[in-house]
């Protein structure tokens, strides 16, 4: 029989932590701090709106780009939050999570061999999506001492004549890093000089602490060279609804909608109705969840300091990214040992790119009580391995 699967797909590296995941799954009494989604239930008014739409028989496809009332709400929301204007009719598309938007954006803009700069540590799907779209991922290892922000010099050094796209993903998973306005402004000259497109994944934008999220698309000259990706999963605790969106200038969006149309048709209708209520009435929910995350973030950072584990101060998302290099183990070894010895699951930093080696990702999408219980175990583990050193 012939080999049916393409070389291109076979070349895609499977997720690095499959083995680790299997061990955790078989350990029912383990405390997991490994989850990348909110612990809150979707606020009831949002769920209710989904139920109401089902009861009313709204079970058909929507238009390809999404329900118009939802696109209008997105437009209003983005204008309010980020001072950005996008036309609901031609510049906004509702997608199946931010994930679909990432895939489609790359496939829309990459010619074979085009290079995409991806600062790492980063979410795991960017590199394979670029490869599948025929592009070439060029990763930049970001540094903890720069608070995992992308510096102009690092960007400049990664650019070649083939560079077409800069991917930005702030607030960042897994580091929790943000880029403030000045950090973004420092990149603008380089982006313009090399005529780059920016694909900006801002899915954690609402989870920014002690400052407001700034979208790079809102800075001078940037809107026309930006595709902005956002969604409902993190800000409204709606991961399972699979709903995100993309914003782009008309000429790019027109083409993106084609891919979406032929691959997806339209995003889940129930989710779209629910999302209208999220944007219309969900602001207080967002504020409440953000405050809870911020309290946990402070708690974890304080614990890291107490346990003398170096950790830069993350200002976004719901992760901390402490440095565990002092123990002389790889991050996967550290995570495996911690799981075996004290039954706490964290994610090895190496899952997010080679430069994540020496770090672990701890999620604080857990209640303070759960975090306290987990931290007591981590403390016991550190004591053990420090004694054995």
């Amino acid at each position: 029989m012939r080999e049916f699967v393409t070389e291109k797909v076979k070349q895609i590296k499977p997720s690095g932590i499959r083995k680790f995941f299997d061990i955790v799954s078989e350990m029912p009494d383990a405390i997991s701090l490994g989850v990348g989604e909110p612990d809150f239930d979707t606020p009831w008014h949002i769920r209710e709106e989904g139920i109401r739409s089902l009861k009313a028989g709204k079970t058909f496809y929507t238009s390809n780009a999404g329900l118009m009332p939802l696109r209008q709400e997105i437009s209003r929301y983005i204008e309010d939050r980020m001072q950005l204007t996008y036309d609901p009719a031609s510049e906004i598309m509702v997608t199946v999570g931010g994930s679909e938007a990432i895939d489609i954006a790359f496939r829309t803009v990459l010619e074979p061999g085009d290079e995409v700069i991806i600062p790492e540590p980063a979410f795991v799907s960017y590199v394979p999506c670029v490869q599948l779209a025929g592009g070439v991922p060029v990763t930049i290892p970001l540094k903890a001492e720069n608070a995992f922000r992308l510096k102009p010099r690092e960007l400049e050094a990664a650019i070649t004549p083939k560079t077409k796209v800069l991917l930005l993903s702030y607030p960042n998973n897994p580091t929790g890093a943000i880029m403030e306005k000045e950090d973004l402004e420092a990149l603008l000259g380089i982006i313009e000089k090399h005529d780059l497109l920016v694909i900006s994944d801002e899915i954690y934008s609402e989870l920014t602490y002690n400052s407001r999220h700034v979208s790079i698309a809102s800075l001078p000259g940037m809107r026309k060279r930006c595709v902005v990706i956002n969604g409902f999963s993190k800000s409204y605790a709606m991961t399972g609804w699979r709903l995100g969106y993309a914003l782009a200038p008309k000429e790019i969006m027109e083409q993106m909608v084609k891919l979406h149309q032929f691959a997806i048709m339209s995003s889940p209708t129930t989710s779209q109705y629910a999302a209208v209520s999220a944007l219309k009435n969900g602001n207080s929910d967002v504020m409440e969840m953000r405050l809870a995350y911020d309290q946990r973030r402070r708690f974890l950072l304080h614990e890291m300091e107490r346990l003398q584990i170096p950790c830069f101060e993350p200002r976004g998302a719901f992760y901390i990214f402490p440095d565990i290099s002092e123990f002389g183990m790889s991050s996967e070894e550290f995570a495996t040992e911690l799981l075996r010895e004290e039954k706490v699951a964290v994610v090895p930093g190496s899952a997010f790119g080679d430069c994540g080696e020496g770090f672990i990702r701890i999620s604080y999408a857990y209640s303070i009580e759960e975090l306290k219980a987990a931290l007591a175990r981590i403390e016991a583990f550190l004591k053990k391995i420090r004694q054995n050193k």
Partner: protein
Amino acid sequence: MEQDLRRQVLNILEKNSRLSPAEIAVMTGTDEQTVADMISALEKEGIICGYHTLINWDKENDDSVTALIELKVTPQGGDGYNKIAEQIYQYPQVETLYLMSGAYDFLVLLRGKSIKDISLFVSENLASIEEVQSTATYFTLTKYKEQGVNLARKKQDGRMVITL
């Protein structure tokens, strides 16, 4: 900002009164002394009124019964409602007492050993108050939710253990 911190401290304690001032200080980004001072001020002002534990007595196989009683009253003089309230809230069986707007005046939440026990209390101690015109007694059957906590179903983490 000060008001903001005060609200945060109250909201944190309302959900979990076992957190220490040191822990609350960490969570809110202030120092322990500030939180400790704030809490004792809130206690003195009677804003923080206790640090109780929410117990699901039904699960403890406790046979006690709770009932809601609506009271209609005819208040006498200027301080009429308060005087009647005083007569009612002195009884240890009265767990909660509210003056209400609407069709009746007082809402009394009672806990007693049995239905009989409560009926007796209503007829002898509440209905006998001179200003009380009428009473209506409702016994609770199942408590699903109390003080924002779902008693019927314990929250389970439905998430996969690891997601990137």
